[in-house]
Structures are given as C-alpha cells and as structure tokens.
C-alpha cells in the first residue's frame, strides 16, 4: 500500500519528516506493509502535512497531520478507511484544489518529484519529444503564438526574447533559469522545483533547442535547501537517462544543466545582476542595452527566464500554442499562479486562468484572515508591489488591470494584512529593505532608500510634516525615474500606495 507524505519545504517546516517517520513506525508496529513515498506538495499549504493513501478508487487524503495525530489515525483504521477528524476524503474531491485549473502545477503532489518514471507517466517529456522533431524557428513560433509572458514579474513576451537570441549569431549561447525567487509572499517557483523539477529541466532543454544553446544554468537562491536537494538529484537522473547531455535521446542534440547557488542577495533576482553573479562577481546591475538576449552571460546571447515561464514551455510544446492561449483574457494568456500568504486562513498556491478578482481569491480560496480580524491591506506583486485597500480588491488579476490602479502583478504574490497593521511601518520597511538589498550601483536607489527611511521617520514624528511629505514625494519620483533597475524604481510603489490609501497611519 502506497502512502504519500510531501517532502516540500513548507510541509517539512510543519513536521512532515516526523509524520513520515511516525507512519513508518506505526505501520511496522501493526505489521502493515506500506511503501512510503515522499511526494511533492500540491500547494494547499493550509492542509500540510497532507498525507495521502492510494486506494483502488483513488487517493484518500488526511490533513493537516501532526506527528502526534499519527497513533490516533492508525487506531481509527488508517491507512484503510478511517473515521477520523482529519479525514478529508478523496483528494480529487477537495474543492480548494479541484476548482483550480492546473496546467503548470498539473503534476504537483501526484508524484515523487525525483522519479523520472512518475514524470513520464504523467505526460512528462512529451513537449521535448515534439520539439526534437521541429526546427528552432518552429519552436520559437509556437512559444510566440502561445502568448506566454515572462512570469518572473516583468511580463515580457517570452517568444520575442527567444527570437532575439535565435537571431543573434554566436559560437556559444546560454539558457539561464532565474530561480532566485526572493519576493516575500511568493513560493510558486519553489513549489514547482520541489514538486516537479523535470518540468523545469524539460522547459530549459526545449529553450536550448529553440535558440541553439547547449549550456544551461539554474541560479537558485540559498534560502531554498530543499529545492537544491531535489534539483541536484533530478539533474543527475535526467543526465543518466539521456534527457540531458551530449546526445539527447539519440537526437544528436546536446544540452547540459548546471545548478548554481546564490548567496543571499535579493538583487540577484534581477537578470543582469544574476548574470554578474553567475560570472563570479558582485551582483551589480548592468546597464541595458545591451539586452542579455544579445550580450548576456560572458557577453554571449542568453535567454534568462523565470522558473514558471520555463515550466509553461513544456505544456505549450506538448499541447500546442492554441491550447495554452485559450486560457486567460486580453494580453494575459494562459494561467496565473497566485500565491496566497501572510495573514490568511487557507494559504497556498492557486492556479487559475487570468480573470479572477483579488477578492475572489482572498475571500474565496483564502477564507479570510488567519487571525479572524478584518483584512485591511493586501500587497500584490512582492515587496515592490502596491498595498491595496479594500476599495480596490475587486480588481481583476491580470497584468493590465493591476497597472491601471497603480500596482503590479509581479510574480503573483498576494500578502494579506489584518487591521492591526501599521502602514507607515510597512512603508518604512519598503525603504529599509531597499537600503539593505540595493546593489549600490546607482545613487537614487543606494542613497534614496536610506534617505527614505529617515524622511518617513520624520513624517511619522510629525516634524515639518508638509515639507517632509513633499521631500518624500520628490524622493520617490527620483527613485522611480532615475534608478537603473526595478529595485530602486519600484520601491516607491509600496511607499506611495501606503501613503495614498492609508494616510491616517502616518502620524498627524
């Protein structure tokens, strides 16, 4: 009998390793023969550790299970049909999951993430097999037609980036996966890497075929030790099985992937800073142009894509551009992966076609705040995204609609705060974070963020209020217009939105 206990970082942070051990012991003690599989998480983190038992009629779910619950579970009949408070019924019947439209996270939770057989049994490598039969231009065209836009935050059309790299002649080109997911409130990249790493490896390989690159790098942040473990294993196994290497599945085409670990610098999530870091340097922002697509890693044409963008590639190639395109609205095609976090009752990853509103997600899926107090502010799009008051929660979550209300969708992070939040402190923190993490290359960001903290402190203390508010506004304008990259350029977004929508929190 197969029993599944996730190995994902959040599941482990909630005791999944101990739960797995208790289940092994419990089964041994009762003479029950089990095969314990450490699967990936489904992203329903509010139910973690989510234990599943394979039966003839599908998988039965139990959760959230703590190690202390395990003896009681066995006593009530587990792993057979158990009458226990933690019984959730068939995993397919959990509405929170069943009502989602999973394309990128289709396999998440179903398989042992490092099992190649598991991956292939769920349509894995179909996209690459098809890509191996296609010309480079045909692959790029397929991606263009899908309407996929970069999921890292900037939302640049992926196919156009690839076309530039394909059209640029060079003796060596590179594929770089940006797995430096530093935004607070986001964990979709981590979930994908820890639940379905071969999807990323497949997407990168297809990217290599599409632009003529034979070398790939995954730049992973050091804060993700679980992802590191999974990726190391998956890359080794894919290489062993001929899905990576000098001759991919006998096609004569080569592609290799090397895993690189960051060293705790948020700014390295910015693509040019990431490239400098990969080159072994300080992670300083580069001037653009030249674009990395033309002069990237070591000056060579380089595709830099986010984990989710590369993940979507395998679906697009396996099922065709039209299939992917028909999800979504306007210029936001495919699915959106929203990550619900902060003060929320049912936090986790929700994948839906673009089109749902923020309120539907936070109140429907999220179930309101964890504290039970009224929600007051929601930050969308990571630490550089806007704080939105309740009057704006009916906004549709797509790239255009968020921009229209002075925010951004970014990487899809949604952080909920209840009514105990002090928005002046949140604004101050945005500046403080920028001061800590600025690469220091440009003055508006390096100095502006430090001055920003000081000015906000003066406003809160009610010193020369009108004057200091004007100074803060000027400072935000300078950072916005004068910074080299999004770090300094967008730090004003949370600050200004907090000031605009929650002025009462700033002293006076």
């Amino acid at each position: 009998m197969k029993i599944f206990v996730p190995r994902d970082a959040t599941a482990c942070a909630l005791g999944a390793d101990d739960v797995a051990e208790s289940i092994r012991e419990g089964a041994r003690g009762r003479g029950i023969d089990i095969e314990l599989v450490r699967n990936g998480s489904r992203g329903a983190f509010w139910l973690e550790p989510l234990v599943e038992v394979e039966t003839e009629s599908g998988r039965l779910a139990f959760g959230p299970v703590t190690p202390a619950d395990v003896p009681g579970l066995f006593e009530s009949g587990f792993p057979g049909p158990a009458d226990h408070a933690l019984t959730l019924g068939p995993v397919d019947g959990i509405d929170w999951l069943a009502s989602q439209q999973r394309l990128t996270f289709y396999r998440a939770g179903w398989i042992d993430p490092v099992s190649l057989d598991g991956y292939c049994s769920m349509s894995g490598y179909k996209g690459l097999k098809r890509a191996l039969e296609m010309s480079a231009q045909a692959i790029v065209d397929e991606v263009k037609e899908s309407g996929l836009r970069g999921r890292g935050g900037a939302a640049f059309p992926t196919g156009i980036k690839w076309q530039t790299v394909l059209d640029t002649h060079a003796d060596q080109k590179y594929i770089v996966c940006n797995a430096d997911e530093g935004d607070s409130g986001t964990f979709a990249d981590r979930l994908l890497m820890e639940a379905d790493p071969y999807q990323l490896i497949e997407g990168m390989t297809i990217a290599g075929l599409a632009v003529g690159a034979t070398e790939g790098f995954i730049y992973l942040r050091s804060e993700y030790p679980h992802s590191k473990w999974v990726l190391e294993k998956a890359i080794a196994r894919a290489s062993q099985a001929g899905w990576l290497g000098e001759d991919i599945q006998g096609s004569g085409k080569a592609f290799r992937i090397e895993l690189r670990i960051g060293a705790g610098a948020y700014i390295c999530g910015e693509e040019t800073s990431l490239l400098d870091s990969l080159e072994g340097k300080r992670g300083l922002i580069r001037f653009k142009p030249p674009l990395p697509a033309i002069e990237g890693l070591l000056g060579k044409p380089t595709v830099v894509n986010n984990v989710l963008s590369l993940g979507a590639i395998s679906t697009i190639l396996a099922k065709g551009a039209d299939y992917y395109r028909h999800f979504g609205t306007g210029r936001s095609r495919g699915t959106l992966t929203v990550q619900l976090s902060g003060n929320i009752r049912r936090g986790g990853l929700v994948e839906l076609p673009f089109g749902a509103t923020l309120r539907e997600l936070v109140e429907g899926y999220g179930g309101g705040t964890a504290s039970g107090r009224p929600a007051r502010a929601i930050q969308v799009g990571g630490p550089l995204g806007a704080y939105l008051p309740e009057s704006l929660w009916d906004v549709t979550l797509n790239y255009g609609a968020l921009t229209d209300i002075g925010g951004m969708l970014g990487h899809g992070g949604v952080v909920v705060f209840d009514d105990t939040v002090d928005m002046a402190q949140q604004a101050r923190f945005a500046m403080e974070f920028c001061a800590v993490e600025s690469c220091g290359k440009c003055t508006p960001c390096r100095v502006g963020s430090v001055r920003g903290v000081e000015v906000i402190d003066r406003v809160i203390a009610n010193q020369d209020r009108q004057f200091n508010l004007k100074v803060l506004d000027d400072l935000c304008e300078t950072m916005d217009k004068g910074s080299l990259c999004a770090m300094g350029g967008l730090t004003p977004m949370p600050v200004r939105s907090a000031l605009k929508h929650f002025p009462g929190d700033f002293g006076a």
Partner: protein
Amino acid sequence: MNSSAVSLQEIVDCAVAEHQGKIGILMPVLHSLQEKLGFVPSEAVPMLARSLNLSRAEIQGVIGFYHDFRTRPAGEHVVQLCRAEACQAMGARELELHVKQRLGIDYGETTEDGRYTLEPVYCLGNCACAPSLRINDGIHARTSASRFDELIDGLDAQE
C-alpha cells in the same frame, strides 16, 4: 608558515580543484570554503587571488557583497529570522523582539558562549505558514515566541 596556514592552503586548493573549469568559479569556491570552515578566513583571500588569477580586492568585494559569506566563525547554531512582509503580517516584528531578548544579541551577533548566531533573512519561501525561521538547515513554520523557546530549549538540552 605555520601548520594551520598550510592546511588552509590545502583546503583552498581542494575547493578550487573541485570547481575547476567552471565559469564564474569564485562563487562556488567560496561556498565550498564556507561549507568546510563555517566562514571564509581573511588568510584565504590572497591564496584565492593567486590561484584564480584575480585581485584581492575583487575577491574581498565579492565576499562583502553577499549576505551569506561570513568572515568570522558563526556560533554553533545559526538562527535566521524572516523579516519580510508575509511574516510581518503574522507577527514577525514581535517575534523578532522576543528572539533578540531571549538570545541577548542583535542581528549579526553571536552569543558570548558561542552557541547562537542571529541573522535576518528576507523570505524563506514559506509565506503561507508564517512566521518562519531557520535554524541551521531546518525551516520552521507558524512559529511564535513560545515555539522559539521550545526549539532553543531542545537544542540546549542536547548539550
């Protein structure tokens, strides 16, 4: 040259050999050194400079840029507290006060007995079950002041 300098040279040579041929070799080499020694000793900088054909300033610049690289030994256990927004929304600011008080140190410091080093971290990707902290390689979700005390008491009991 004393014996510890000789062995440091060996460790540096070994780290460089491990990553030979890689592009941007300095970062993986620094990670290897820190994994081995717990920090990157200043004496390693000229050795790396010679071996990688870089200036000492370049190496020092890289070590100084990244939060992860330490130039002094850390305590026996490294406690990283998430300071980012999702954790703030669940009481990380209050937790931070408690942790600093309990350990009697601020960020970047090590307790006098060498047991604990406290560091800030900006997101552990565990935002749906905040607040989060990391002790060595273990991440803990939905922590609180009392949960933190339990974890520390557990570590102290292992002594």
